[in-house]
């Protein structure tokens, strides 16, 4: 894993990585669990929420936003969270169970390339889901156009950086794909609760809202919501995301099990 000095020349090395990404993408298409979780589900929820007339009315307790406006960032973190906590670790644990990582470690290619390829594919699925969500919410349901797209992109990037290493850590802790899915659920549901999936942050009591701001998906929603409304997000939620990214990035690198 430590070795980067593949004797393949640069272009051949990129081609080799490209081949791994290509096959991971094929698998993502042929076993569409992560496409369903990362793209179909958030969009279907958007359509359902959009069909409720009251969701499209500005509400005073939401600070003049519509419920749909409030839910767009929540659906974005739903997509990212599902892909990071299920889409990423499930294939990786399966690969470890099957011996794919072990076989790869007998080739000149370092096995972490497979992790990187898998992460890249899941990230592409997430970005596809996010773009479809934003475009549909704006064009079909007249939701808020992000006023600060740069801040939104930064928030999305930091969210991904915080939650994807959690998925890697789940893949390390779990011995089997089934175990990974159980741990994933235990971690995911509290996180998506604090993101406001069932009870938007704006309506949470003060204490709960405070806690939410320190959870990865709660901080993510806070940062994205602020970006949508045109302010550059306050430093707090972004710092929370950075802290999660650093801690879980370190843990994932330290504890990832290849076999």
């Amino acid at each position, binding site marked *: 894993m430590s070795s980067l000095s593949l004797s393949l020349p640069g272009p051949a090395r990129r081609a080799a990585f490209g081949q791994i990404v290509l096959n991971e993408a094929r698998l993502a298409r042929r076993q569409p669990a992560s496409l369903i979780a990362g793209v179909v589900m958030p969009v279907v929820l958007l359509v359902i929420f959009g069909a409720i007339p009251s969701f499209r009315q500005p509400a005073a307790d939401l600070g003049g936003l519509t419920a749909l406006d409030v839910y767009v960032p929540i659906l974005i973190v739903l997509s990212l969270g599902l892909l990071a906590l299920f889409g990423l670790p499930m294939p990786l644990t399966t690969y470890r169970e099957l011996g794919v990582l*072990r076989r790869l470690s*007998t*080739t000149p290619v370092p096995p972490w390339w497979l992790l990187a390829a898998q992460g890249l594919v899941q990230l592409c699925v997430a970005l596809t889901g996010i773009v479809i969500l934003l475009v549909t919410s704006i064009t079909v349901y007249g939701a808020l156009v992000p006023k600060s797209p740069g801040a939104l992109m930064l928030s999305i990037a930091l969210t991904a950086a915080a939650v994807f290493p959690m998925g890697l850590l789940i893949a390390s802790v779990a011995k089997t794909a089934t175990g990974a899915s159980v741990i994933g659920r235990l971690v995911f549901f509290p996180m998506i609760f604090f993101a406001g999936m069932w009870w938007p942050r704006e309506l949470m009591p003060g204490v709960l809202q405070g806690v939410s701001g320190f959870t990865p998906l709660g901080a993510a929603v806070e940062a994205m919501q602020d970006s949508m409304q045109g302010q550059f997000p306050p430093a707090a939620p972004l710092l929370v995301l950075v802290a999660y990214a650093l801690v879980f990035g370190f843990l994932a690198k330290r504890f990832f099990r290849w076999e």
Partner: protein
Amino acid sequence: MGIPQIAADPRLDARAGHLQEAASGGGRPPLNGAASTSAGTVATISRQDGAIGTYGPRRAASRPAVEIAHLRKTYGELVAVDDVSFSVAEGEIFGILGPNGAGKTTTVECAIGLRPPDSGTVRLLGLDPQADRDRVHEAVGVQLQAGALPAKLRVAEILHMYRSFYPDPADVGELTEVLGLAGKLKDYYKSLSGGQRQRLSVALALIGRPKVAVLDEMTTGLDPQARRDAWALIEGIRGRGVTIVLVTHFMEEAERLCDRVALIDGGRVVALDTPAGLAARARGGKSVRFVPSVPFDDRLLTGLAEVRRVEREGQHVTVTGTGTGELVNAVILALHTAGVTARDVQLDSSNLEDAFVKLTGNHPDQEGAAR
């Protein structure tokens, strides 16, 4: 499967040729001998150039392909490999044989750099697999025990991906032709039979044109026909000059394929010899079994220098030799002189399996059943 067959084995001629070549430093690739004397289809396959290892007309094996000295590896309290030393010559098929938990797989994993040894040295083609991981992995093709692949990838997709990892890979079309997978390129991995998966696994071990191929339990779980096909395949690969390290627990396989065998037990090499040499160690002497035409006195045979003992079981007489002299000739001659004719003569010679049982105290069949 006995000594005469091994002696007549073309590989030995090939090795002789190889040595000759080494001595004269002549121009003919030494391993052509092996290719041209291999049986049937294998020989044809071997002569086509290019699909599998190209290792060319390498001269004298001044440097062993694999060299392991005093290897030791422990997992906590458990000493998996205690003190293992052996070296594998270039172009050789080297067998690693032993009961379950003997340390075979750990030895191989240290040899290819998957695990760092606690102590001892490992050299593959002169390189330290820990320090030179990439160069070692380019030159060594590995087929590990029980390595599956993603169910929903097609054979061709898997092969092209692994092909891209190597600087000078084999041609997918030719390789799959040789391995009998040509018609399966568009099939998903999950739809392949056990034998086809095994051949794909071998294909992945060979796609980088390795100089050394390490095959761990490659025929475990195959039906007898598929196993024989795999053997022909291995002989074909060697015909191209690839050095092969074969981990196995099938006696017949080691006897049939290997030039030399290291018998590992309890983390140590308990014996290292040719299959015939190992079998000879287990032999308390050959034995000959027959039905005499008329009764005779045992002393007629026990008095012979070649005979250790005479046993009777019903009408059968079993004569065990001392291992010196020509037992059969001596027995038949003595009987003939006394006017006795031997009918239904059967000659038993001990084999590698006897050696395995004798040297490890394990029975290979029990081990197979325990899997």
